[in-house]
């Protein structure tokens, strides 16, 4: 007996075309200074934020559908979340260190 979930080809094609659309979108907005088109004082980093939001969306589509996490066992989902959690620890603690180094006048530095 096998209980594999077989996803319809249609779903895979939809995900593929979604990924294509997001790829062209990210290339398109990369050449636009988004801050110029928004009211008020918007940080220049808005371009970075938009590019990363699109990349995260694309990665999520790949992980959920191409990597079958949507229909996967709960244990696999826990491993996926755990890997994201460890990346979060790596970034949060390292960046808290690097970004705050100039805040205090440390003698001899």
């Amino acid at each position, binding site marked *: *007996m*096998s*209980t*594999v979930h*077989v*996803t319809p*080809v249609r779903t*895979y*094609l939809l995900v*593929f075309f979604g*990924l*294509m659309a997001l*790829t*062209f979108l*990210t*290339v398109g907005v*990369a*050449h*636009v*200074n*988004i801050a110029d088109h928004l009211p008020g004082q918007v940080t220049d980093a808005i*371009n*970075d934020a938009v*590019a*990363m939001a*699109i*990349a995260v969306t*694309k*990665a999520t589509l*790949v*992980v959920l*559908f*191409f*990597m079958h996490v949507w229909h*996967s*066992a709960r*244990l*696999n989902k826990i*491993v*996926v979340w*755990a*890997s*994201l959690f*460890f*990346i979060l620890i*790596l*970034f949060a603690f*390292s*960046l808290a260190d*690097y*970004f705050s180094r100039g805040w205090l006048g440390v003698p001899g530095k």
Partner: protein
Amino acid sequence: MASEARPAPLAHHFDDYDQQRESATLGMWLFLAQEVMFFGGLFLAYTVYRWKYPAWFALGSNQLDVPLGLANTIVLIGSSLTMVLAVRAAQLGKARQIAGWIGATMALGTAFLVVKGFEYHHKWVHHLIPGAGFHIEGTTDPAAQTFFVLYFCMTGLHALHMIVGLGLLAFLVPKALRGDFSAENHNWVEGVGLYWHFVDVIWIFLFPLLYLLGRHHA
């Protein structure tokens, strides 16, 4: 007898094929969690150095070829589509289809590496390889090399993963044609598929980080 399809049997320490497959998938995911941390160090280095040298990263990013990067992104996402269709064929136990989709995936993966090779050669010709011969229009600050150190480390490690992936796919083709995979047991195809998609996910982040960020200033 010997020439007939011989799907890998159920290993004696599993209750059934479902349990065997779920164990294999879980093992692959644990490996990929480790891979996330492996690449994570490089992404962290990129973040810290880009924060430290934003102008040099924007300058470096503008040296890369967006149309080639875009073409490679399309090729790689296309290869993920053919890979997932190979896994689907395996789930349905269709041996020839598995081999065909794996062949398509290998062709696209090879195309990606060929384009990457042309890009590396272009960087070599234009003195953009970090080291004594490095020269970039716009600055003499050696810190401008940092972007290219990370560019070569990140895309190089990614390309190495692709080469390993191509080797694994080549290994699967004769197994598929021999009928080693069945709807019950195609854990090899599923596992290599997960690995291939992971490599795609890494590129989904590398493409905007290396090629696109800082373009709006140019």
